[in-house]
Structure formats: C-alpha cells, structure tokens
C-alpha cells in the first residue's frame, strides 16, 4: 500500500471518528493483508499533515493522539453554528423598558411606583449591557437616584429614527380596543409567541407530504 493510500485511509478514519486516535489505534484499522506498520502510519500522518495545508483543516497531535481539527482562524464562523437560540425577555423587563422609553428620564423608583412591584437590579443591568438603556444623570433628591434613558442603539434595535416614532399612546388604546374586539388578550400574546417560535423551528418541520386523494 502506498504512503498516499495509507494517508487517505487515515484521513477517512480520523474524520469519520471525529476524535483523537493514537498511532496504535490507527494501525489497528488496517488488516494484516495491508501490511502497514508503525513507521508507515507515522509517515502517512506526515503526508496527511502536508495534504491538509491550505485547507480549513489541520492535523494536530494532542494528549490522546492525532486528530483533524478545523483551523482556529475559522472559529468565529464555526461558533455561529452553536449560537444559543435567543431566549425571550421576561415580561418585567419589557415593561421596564417600555416605561423607560415612554417616560424617560425616569428613576427606578418611579418605575416601581407605576409597575407596583420592585424592579430587579438584574433587569436594569441587562438593559444596560444590551446598551438599550443608560444612566443620563442623577435626580437631585435624597438618595440621588439614577435617571434612566434609552439610547440610540435602542432606537436602532426597534427600527426607529427618533423617539417620537414610537407608537403613540393613542395607538396603544387602539390596540387595546382591537384586542378587546377580537377577544385576544392573553391568548393572543401566546399565539404571537408561538408564531415566533415556529419561525425558529428547524427546516425538518417544513417537510410536508402532499396528498391528493
């Protein structure tokens, strides 16, 4: 068996395996009739290493043997494969954000007054990390509470040019009315969420069988 043939078999086996393999394990892949020895496997690994140059893959030696891996430079692209599906923000966060957007600048205390419940520090921090909300200053009252405002990124995220593009509160009332008419209060929201999840579903689910019977 030529070195090239051995090298290709090693490539096949390492990539089908997807894990590191020792030279001993690699030798065991060959039958007696192939007559491949330790030295040939080591040489063939070198051939493979060279063959992979210029590709997205590389042969590396790690503690548990040799493995083929995707070159580190492709990390940013590969990592998008496993981007976690965005979770949904909590109701409390959305309400807090809505209040900041419509009543800015507003303090945490004022949000709490309107919502009737405490606003968790976590929510404010999440909104700040997302750079949708920032502290514009402090109200000059005892305790000097932070004044929260929305940012330009917030406008960008919602496709708005300026704050006045936010739907007016009158539109809110219309929405209320429409919902009442359609009898779509809580159920409507669930349905909406459902639709959004459906959008994220795997292509698998698109698989449809047409019947004409």
């Amino acid at each position, binding site marked *: 068996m030529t070195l090239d043939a051995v090298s290709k078999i090693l490539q*096949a086996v390492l*990539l*089908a395996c*997807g*894990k*590191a393999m020792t030279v001993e394990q690699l030798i065991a892949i060959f039958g007696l009739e192939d007559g491949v020895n330790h030295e040939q496997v080591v040489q063939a690994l070198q051939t493979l290493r060279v063959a992979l140059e210029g590709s997205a*893959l590389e042969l590396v030696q790690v503690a548990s043997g040799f*493995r*083929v*891996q*995707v070159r*580190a*430079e*492709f*990390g*940013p692209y*590969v*990592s*998008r494969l*496993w*981007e*976690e599906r965005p979770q*949904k*923000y909590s*109701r409390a966060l*959305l*309400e807090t*954000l*809505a*209040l900041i957007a*419509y*009543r*800015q*600048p507003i303090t945490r205390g004022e949000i709490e*007054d*309107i*919502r*009737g419940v405490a606003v968790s520090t976590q929510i404010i921090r999440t909104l700040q990390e997302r750079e949708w909300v*920032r502290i*514009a*200053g*402090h*109200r*000059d009252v005892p305790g000097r509470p932070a*004044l929260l*405002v*929305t940012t330009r990124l917030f406008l960008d995220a*919602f496709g708005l040019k*300026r*704050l*006045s593009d*936010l*739907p*007016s*509160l009158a*539109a*809110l009332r219309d*929405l209320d009315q429409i919902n009442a008419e359609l009898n779509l209060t809580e159920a409507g*929201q669930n349905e*909406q969420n459902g639709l959004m999840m459906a959008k994220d579903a795997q292509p698998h689910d698109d698989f449809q069988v047409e019947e004409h019977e």
Partner: protein
Amino acid sequence: MNEPAVHALLQTEMPFALVYGKALTKIPEDLYIPPDALEVFLEAFEGPLDLLLYLIRRQNMDILDIQVAEITRQYMGYIDIMQSMKFELAAEYLVMAAMLGEIKSRCLLPRPRDTQGEDGEDPRAELIRRLQEYERYKQAALDLDALPMEGRDFFVAIATAPIYTRLHAPPEVELDELLLALRDVLKRAELYESHHVGHEGLSLRERMADILQALQEDEFLSFFALFHVEEGRLGVVVSFIALLELIKEGLLDLVQAESFAPIYVRHRRTQTEELAP
C-alpha cells in the same frame, strides 16, 4: 395417505411434493427442517403472505398462476406441524389457512363460465392481489437495505471544532411586544392612580432625551444649538421647557464664561462626579 389422489390434484409435475405429502399427516423423519428448528423457521417468515410467497417460489410457480390446491396443502402442512408441536401460532397464519381453504373449495366448484358479470371472477384474485402487493414491498425493503446507509456504508465527516468563545445572541424584541408590555403596565397602574399621558408629554420628554443624547456626544453644546428655528415657535418653546426641566432635575448646567459670552450647556454629571466627596 393416497398418493395418486394427491397427484391428481396437481396440475404440474412436482416430484418433491411427495415429501410434503407425508408431512400432512405426521412429522416426517426426513423433513429437511429439524423439528426443534421449526420455531426458528417460522420466525424467518414475516407472516403468512411471506410463507406463501416462499412456497410459491420454491415450486417456480408464478403468483398469477398460483395453484391454490397445492399451495394450500403445503401451507396446511406447516400449520399442522406447528399446532401438533403446541407451537403458539400467530393468529394471522390461521386466518390465512381459512382463507386458503375457502379459495380452494371455490376453485374446485365448476366455474360458471357463461354467466356475465363478476360471478366469473377468479376466486384466487384477491389472494393474488395481496401476494403481489406484499411482494413488491418485500422487494422494496430489500432495495432499501441495498442502498448505502449512513453509519453502515458511509460516514459523515466531522472534525474537532476550534476553541472559540461562543457568541450569545441576545433575544429579539418586537415593537409590538414593547407596546403590549406598556399597555399591561399602564393598565395595572390605573389601579393605583389615574394617568394622563398625552402626546405633549411625550414630545417634551422626547426633547429632553434628545438634549441628553446630544450632550452624550459632545460634552459641551452651544445654548443656541439646542433650538431649531425651523420648528417654529412651539418647537422652540418645547426645547426651552425641556432645557429648564433638565436643569431643574439637576441634569444640566448652563455655563457662561462672562457677560454676553456664548452660553453653553453641559452635563452636570461630569461636574458632580468631579466634586463628589
């Protein structure tokens, strides 16, 4: 056992049928399947149709020209052996036995050749249809098995992924959701107090936010840069009120180096932070 009678039933010569002739009455010593292997033998068949197909193929019969009498005899031979060995037979085999018996008896009756209509239909028709139907899927299963199969014949290639800190995509929010959230919170708030949120309030607050935003970008802004004449009197007034409001809230300072010098607006935050004890 009357062997010539058996032959009379047959339409073609099948010498090996004699072996089965004996099998009808008792387990013959020369049966090519050892009796204790009968269970295994039966398990090799995927039901009565499969067994029938086997018997038909063994005799080089065509399904369409199935000789029901002979096949029934052989089929019953197996069934009898199974039952005599107290082997628990799937009910389907017995149903098929009954069906074969019925077809056989109808075949033996003289067929009313000249009457029109469906009376003349071959009593074997339904059996032949089922055998054919089964056989094509039996073949399809073999064809499927002959296809290269992942994990058996071919393998998907996978390489170790590079180590990289994975991105965490933040959730998306639709504007509608924000609006619904606001609606809910305002609805709840109404339980505590009655709110008057008008459009003016928004534009004033918007202007306040605009000023803060502008100051975010430049630490100092000319007082006049805050006003836009093209907005008319009302716009200027709103800007001015917004400015006063922000100063009242302690967010902004007006700065003037000397009399008649340009007035600047700046964030108080920077100042208070510097002066903070």
